[in-house]
C-alpha cells in the first residue's frame, strides 16, 4: 500500500533475514485549528495546518530474531514508529519494509472490544489472525492459564482493570507465536508476579521461537532483561542505535 510519497512493503515472509527496515521514514501529523477546518481540508487541499514531525528521517534495520528496545521521552515518537511498523498508520514519506506476521499490543486496550467478553474477544482476534475456530479453542487454555483472570474471562471487557486487560492481551499476543511481536508499554501495569511471568515468557519466545521483538518501555530494568539492542529516539529523530547497555547509558545521560 502506498500513500503519496511513502512506500510500505509488507510480506508474510518470516524467513527473510530482515524483519523490519525503515529508510528515511517521516511521519507528519497535521494539526488543524478545529474539526471544521479539518473537514474543509478534505475538500480544499490548501487549507492551513500546523505540522508535527512525530518521526523524522528514521532509518534502521532490525534483523530476524533481534529484540530491540525503543527508548525516549514522552512524545519522542516511539509509539508512532511501532504503529507504522504494525501498519495501522501510514508514513508520510520514506520506505518501510516489514517481513513476517505481526502481533502487536499498541496500548493498554490491547485492541479488544470492550463490549465483548474476554472469551469472545479471543475468538474474534483469533479469527482476525487467520486461525479457524478449532485452532483457537486449542489455544484458549494456554491463554487463560497464563492470563489467570479467573471468571472474568466470561465478563465484558469493559469490566476489566487495565492490568487484567494487559494480561489477556499479552497472553494472547504471545500465544500466537508471531514472527514479529510489538509491545508498547503494556507490561508496565502488570503486578510483580505477572511481570516476572511475562518476562520469562518473552525470554522463552525470543530464544525458542526466534521471535523478533520491538519493545517500548520506560523501565530500563525491563529493557536490559531481554533486549540486546537499543534505539533511542528524541523529537522523532534517531539519536542512538547500538548495544543495550550503551543505549541505556546514553539515554539516562541525555535526560539528566
Amino acid at each position, binding site marked *: *500500500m502506498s500513500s503519496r510519497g511513502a512506500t510500505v512493503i509488507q510480506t508474510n515472509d518470516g524467513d527473510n533475514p530482515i524483519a523490519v527496515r525503515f529508510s528515511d521514514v517521516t511521519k507528519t501529523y497535521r494539526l488543524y485549528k478545529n*474539526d471544521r477546518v*479539518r473537514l474543509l481540508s478534505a475538500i480544499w487541499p490548501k487549507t492551513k495546518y500546523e505540522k508535527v514531525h512525530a518521526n523524522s528521517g528514521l532509518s534502521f534495520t532490525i534483523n530476524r530474531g533481534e529484540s530491540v528496545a525503543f527508548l525516549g521521552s514522552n512524545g519522542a515518537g516511539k509509539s508512532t514508529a511501532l504503529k507504522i511498523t504494525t501498519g495501522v498508520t501510514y508514513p508520510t514519506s520514506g520506505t518501510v519494509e516489514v517481513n513476517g506476521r505481526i502481533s*502487536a499490543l499498541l496500548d493498554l*486496550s490491547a485492541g*479488544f*472490544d470492550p463490549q*465483548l467478553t474476554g472469551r469472545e474477544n479471543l475468538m474474534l482476534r483469533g479469527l*482476525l489472525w487467520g486461525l479457524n475456530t478449532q485452532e483457537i479453542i486449542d489455544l484458549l487454555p494456554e491463554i487463560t492459564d497464563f492470563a489467570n483472570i479467573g471468571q472474568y474471562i466470561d465478563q465484558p471487557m469493559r469490566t476489566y482493570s487495565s492490568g487484567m486487560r494487559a494480561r489477556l492481551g499479552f497472553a494472547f499476543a504471545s500465544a500466537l507465536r508471531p514472527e514479529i511481536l510489538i509491545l508498547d508499554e503494556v507490561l508496565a501495569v502488570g503486578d510483580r508476579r505477572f511481570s516476572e511471568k511475562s518476562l520469562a515468557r518473552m525470554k522463552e519466545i525470543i530464544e525458542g521461537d526466534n521471535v523478533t521483538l520491538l519493545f517500548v518501555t520506560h523501565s530500563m530494568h525491563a529493557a536490559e532483561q531481554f533486549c540486546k539492542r537499543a534505539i533511542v529516539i528524541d523529537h522523532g529523530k534517531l539519536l542512538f542505535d547500538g548495544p543495550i547497555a550503551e543505549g541505556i547509558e546514553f539515554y539516562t545521560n541525555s535526560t539528566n
Partner: protein
Amino acid sequence: MGRTLRDIFRDNWVWRTQIWQLAKTELQKQVRGAALGWVWLLITPAVYVFVFWFAISVGLRKGDISGGVPFIVWLTVGLMPWFFMQNMLTSGSNVYTRYTYLVNRLRFPIPVISSFFAAANFLIFLLTQIIVLILIVLMKSPITIYALQAPIIAIVMYLFWTTWSMATSPLSAISRDFHNLIKAMSMPLFWLSGIIFNVTDIAIPWVQWVLAFNPVTFFATSFRAALCDQYWVWDKPQMLWPFVAVFTLMFILAIRVQYRLGPEVADVL
C-alpha cells in the same frame, strides 16, 4: 485511485470469512443484554408498521393508495427496507468510531468495516422479511413472477449502502459536523421518499423526478414493484435511471474519499 478500487475488492475477498464472523459479532452486540434478544429486532419494526397503518388507514382514511394489494402488505413491503436504510444512514455513516480498535489497534482494511456492518444489518433485514412473507400469505396477496426481482433488489440495496458507508464514514471520522448533518438528513429522506405514499401518484412531474433521486424512494418502490405493484423495475425508467446515476456517483465518491482520507482515519480517531 485505481489501486484503491482494486484494494477494496481484494480486501473484501481476502477477508470474506472474517466479514461473516464480524457481522455475527455485531449482531450479538445488538441483541445482547435483552432477555428477548432477537425478538426485539422484530418488535420495533412491527410497532412502526402498526403505528403507520393506524395513522394512515384509520386516522387519515387514506388506506386506498396501495393499488390491488391489501394496504398493510403494501405498507410493510415499503417500510421494512427503511429500517435497514435508516441504520445505514445514521450508524453506517460513522462505522470507524464504532470500531476504533479495528482502525488503529489492529491491521485491518478499513473499507471492510463497512462491509460487515452492512452485512449485520442486512441479516436483520432478511429476518424482517419473514414478517412480510407471513403477511402476504395471511392477506392472500398474490405472488407473481415479478417477485423474482426482490432478492436482486435486496442485494443491490446491500451494495449501495455499503458503498455509502465507505464514502461517508471517513468524513464522519474527521468531522462530527458532517455526521450530524447526515443524521439530520435522515428524517427528510424518509418523508420525501415513496415509503408512505406513491411517488408515481404525485401530480407534479418535476417533484416526481426530484424524489426519484432519493435512493430510499428507489428501494421502497422497487420492492413494491416486485411484491405489490407487479412490474419490472426497468418498466419505469424514470425511477431507475436517477438511481443508477446516484449509485454511480456514490461509487466514485467512495473511491475518492477512501483514497484521499483512508490513510488519515487512524490518525484522527
